[in-house]
């Protein structure tokens, strides 16, 4: 086994583990192929820490005499420190961790070795199949069809094998449209609004180039989604300027002349590196107020949140209020496009606010839609060498969902923990769900056969109960979040999670849950008593009648 070569010192004793807000503990450190394991030897209160190597974002080492210290910074933003006696041991361990946390082959990752210790009731790989989704759709409309044009991933490498397209457009036309769109991501159905039959589609930018190329089939395809005499909206997630510049590189945007029934709106969602700055600001407890606020501002994180939410609200508004269909795209259609289409669905569709509905949304709009998870989530906030393809796109999406959840705390079946869990698993996981960049890669990796799906684990009642929101009451309405800066907040559950003791907040949360539980119990009891009393009264009456 290759891992053994990487582990020069598999075990070290008398290691001291430091974590913020906990007392330091002494114990034994073990390295395995995929985990760093620390266990304290205290009899009374044995503690264990299991850390996936793939969760490690960066490590630093320091020496004072022969005492070495390793500082491990994780992708879930936690920072721990290990004091390891012995220079050689420390160096060995550090280099092993470095090597094991940066394996370049996906097939060496833990999901390929993980054997579940739980009984699989439902195979998560089969929980959300496109056919099921289409069945739901065809029960309300017959204007759409499933196309298998991409069966071998031959038309669009980042699309799933089957996609939903207008019925009136045949596969031949689709092939032409694919040639006209960046990365062949031709417009496909993202969401159908049952209330008024309006739709949201997504694609990548059209390849108009500088000489204004056009594609009749492309025009026909998106026009097929319009009701007679109605206009639609194209939401371009780039600024007009950026969209215009894209023409020089062969990209571009839909010209009014060729798409007269569509109104194009540019809602700029910039992709820039703000996570590192934000986490830096949150991790420094010594900042005075001015410095903290200016760092928070400089990170631009909340600005991004506002941009994304604003664009999603706009898309939802066009569909629900204006009764118009919408096409969303940016450049590649794999990042900001998906943020907008998935958030718009959370605003519009109550189903997406349930646990299963949200899982299905993540599968459809992120995994199947080809968001390159492996590239985007390769590193998180602590990496020294940031590659240009790394970006916290999915975390931004989850943060936006959290903002809406905060504003509508009773309208979601899941709680904040559920979102945090998804964040963790997107960056490091024992499950195969977030491996690979698209369905094509996943099928080549044979994830279905070789790894376990996250959903197989999550959707068991033992786990589900941790993620359920006790306040949930199904709300069939469209929910419009406020995007005013005063209404947006730093997601403390993620960004301050390791930076402050949360005991009091956790206890208060438990108290809240116990009040809700008690309420349900009391109501059940009152109902039971009422029934008993009613029965007794009928018994009495029957006896009287006798």
């Amino acid at each position: 086994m290759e891992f053994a070569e990487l582990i020069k010192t598999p075990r070290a004793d008398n290691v001291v583990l430091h974590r913020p807000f906990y007392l330091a503990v002494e114990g034994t450190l073990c390295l395995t192929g995929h985990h760093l394991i620390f266990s304290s030897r205290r009899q009374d209160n044995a503690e264990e820490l299991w850390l996936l190597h793939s969760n490690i974002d960066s490590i630093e080492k320091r020496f004072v005499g022969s005492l070495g210290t390793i500082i491990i910074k994780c992708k879930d933003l936690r920072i721990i420190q290990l004091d390891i006696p012995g220079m050689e041991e420390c160096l060995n361990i550090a280099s092993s961790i470095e090597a094991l946390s940066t394996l370049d082959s996906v097939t060496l990752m833990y999901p390929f070795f993980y054997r579940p210790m739980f009984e699989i009731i439902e195979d998560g790989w089969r929980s959300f199949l496109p056919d099921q989704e289409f069945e739901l759709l065809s029960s309300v409309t017959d204007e759409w069809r499933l196309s298998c044009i991409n069966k071998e991933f031959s038309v669009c490498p980042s699309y799933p094998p089957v996609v939903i397209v207008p019925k009136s457009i045949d596969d031949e036309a689709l092939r032409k449209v694919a040639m006209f769109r960046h990365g062949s991501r031709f417009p496909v159905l993202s969401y159908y609004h049952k209330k008024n039959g309006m739709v949201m589609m997504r694609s990548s930018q059209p390849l108009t180039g500088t000489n204004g190329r056009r594609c009749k089939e492309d025009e026909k395809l998106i026009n097929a989604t319009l009701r007679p005499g109605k206009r639609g909206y194209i939401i371009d997630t780039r600024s007009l300027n950026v969209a215009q510049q894209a023409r020089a590189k062969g990209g571009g945007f839909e010209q009014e002349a060729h798409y007269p029934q569509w109104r194009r709106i540019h809602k700029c969602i910039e992709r820039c590196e703000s996570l590192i700055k934000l986490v830096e600001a949150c991790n420094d407890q010594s900042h005075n107020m001015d410095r903290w606020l200016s760092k928070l501002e400089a990170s631009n994180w909340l600005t991004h949140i506002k941009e994304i939410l604003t664009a999603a609200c706009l898309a939802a508004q066009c569909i629900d209020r204006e009764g118009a269909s919408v096409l969303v795209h940016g450049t590649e259609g794999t990042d900001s496009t998906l943020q907008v289409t998935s958030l718009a669905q959370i605003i519009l569709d109550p189903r997406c606010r349930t646990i299963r509905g949200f899982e299905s949304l993540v599968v459809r709009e992120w995994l199947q839609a080809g968001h390159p998870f492996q590239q985007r989530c390769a590193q998180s906030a602590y990496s020294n060498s940031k590659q240009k393809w790394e970006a916290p796109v999915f975390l931004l999406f989850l943060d936006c969902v959290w903002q809406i959840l905060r504003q509508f705390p009773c309208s979601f079946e899941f709680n904040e923990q559920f979102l945090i869990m998804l964040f963790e698993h997107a960056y490091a996981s024992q499950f195969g769900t977030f491996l690979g960049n698209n369905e094509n890669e996943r099928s080549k990796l044979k994830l279905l056969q070789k790894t376990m799906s996250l959903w197989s684990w999550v959707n068991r009642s033992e786990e589900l109960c941790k993620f359920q929101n006790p306040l949930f009451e199904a709300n069939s309405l469209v929910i419009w979040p406020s995007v005013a800066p005063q209404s947006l907040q730093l997601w403390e559950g993620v960004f301050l999670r390791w930076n402050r003791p949360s005991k009091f907040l956790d206890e208060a949360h438990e108290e809240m849950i116990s009040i809700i539980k008690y309420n349900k119990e009391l109501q059940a009891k009152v109902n039971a008593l009422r029934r008993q009393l009613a029965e007794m009264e009928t018994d009495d009456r029957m006896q009287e009648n006798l």
Partner: protein
Amino acid sequence: LEFILTTRQEQVKLLDRFSTSNKSLTGTLYLTATHLLFIDSSQRETWILHHHIAAVEKLPLTTSGCPLVIQCKNFRIVHFVVPRERDCHDIYNSLLQLSRTAKYEELYAFSYNPKQNESEQVKGWQLIDLAEEYKRMGVPNSNWQLSDANRDYKICETYPKELYVPRTASKPIIVGSSKFRSKGRFPVLSYYHKNKEAAICRCSQPLSGFSARCLEDEHMLQAISKANPSNRYMYVMDTRPKLNAMANRAAGKGYENEDNYSNIRFQFVGIENIHVMRSSLQKLLEVSGTKGLSVNDFLSGLENSGWLRHIKAVLDAAVFLVKAIAVESASVLVHCSDGWDRTSQVCSLGALLLDSYYRTIRGFMVLIEKDWISFGHKFSDRCCQLDGDPKEISPVFTQFLESVWNLTEQFPQAFEYNEAFLLQIHEHVHSCQFGNFLGNCQKEREELKLKEKTYSLWPFLLDEQKRYQNPLYNPDFSPELTLLEPNTVSFNFKFWRNMYHQFDRSMHPRQSVFNLIMNMSEQNKQLEQDIKELEVPIIATAVFIVLF
């Protein structure tokens, strides 16, 4: 009433100040002697007390009419559009007159009639008894006694009559010390910590100039030190920035020279003065009132206003004070310049962190009565109850409430009261509907005969205390006299949306977990009652069956 040029105006539009679409409600605007009332077409009423109006502004005429913007002290901002300019002008002038009051007797509290009889009124005023409160703390005792030195407000006009001082501080020492302190506000007891036998004392700055000394004052501080058997040194906290305190020396004021006082540890804590606070709030409101605000403009505006920095400074000072008492068992003397603004903030927050009683509804009333009302925080001037010097206005009490709110956010189970309670108190500090906050000091209140002519707020709040109860409150959270240790790292301080945007509905979560839990907790009590009642006949029948 002679100010009201127009009492009723139809076809007035009320605009939403943050809505991007120019939606508005049309309705009728009424002016009464005490309120402005707007009733929209769906019969919803908006009441604005004239005393709440901080500013009225008439904007340039537009095609739809003449805009009138009213800013209130409770941070409500309403934007009316009156069809005709002349009518708008009349309303504007009426409001200007109505919102300005020259005499206390014209304030709402003197005409407000809540249908209480005289004995209820008297009882209401007796609800909070400060002598009782000092007894609860364990005073008087062998080290501390009640002094009658200020019986006729002779020594200090702005102090209450009943003052607690060390037993060893004789009358000449008190008199001497008071002459050496700004406005005669000599060191007196604010809070006594039974277990530690340590005290929070308060006063104003010494008139030390560059070198003046006062033996009586030095004795006074020594007496305070000696009244604490568990620690021989005491802290003197000057809550001002050092620079300000030094500048005061040129005016014959200043701060204690450590060489002249035995066993004191002197400390500046750097809270800014009322003028800085006033302009800080002004900046904050300018930012938060901007339409279509971007996140970065909001954050940089928040930073530039300095508002959260000031809140943090106040809380940091309280934490410093509390540590001296809880960790070192040392007594602390707190002062600023006059000892009625920053000193009130720090003393009351310190006591709140030390003593869980002040985290109960009634205890909070007591705290406000003690450290704010009785010790002469100038509510009238600071809240601009009468038309007066605008430079005296300052949101010092608002900052205190905000600091408490920050604590409730960090310790959701430690407080019996909720945010609504803090907001309601804030509302009434400015409403002038009750007598409690009128005037600047006790002497003035006595002269106004407030206890006969007006009503006390507290019984009304207690009557509706269900609304102010925190459903998550756990009385065992911190047993008596255990310390609350807040985390004052910057990221813990948040913009208080429910205060500054209380009336801007579109900004708040559409569903409130807090209200839901509050209702549920209330409903649980009812259900428990229902179960008891339902069980009676069932048990009776069961007994009947067993017996026969």
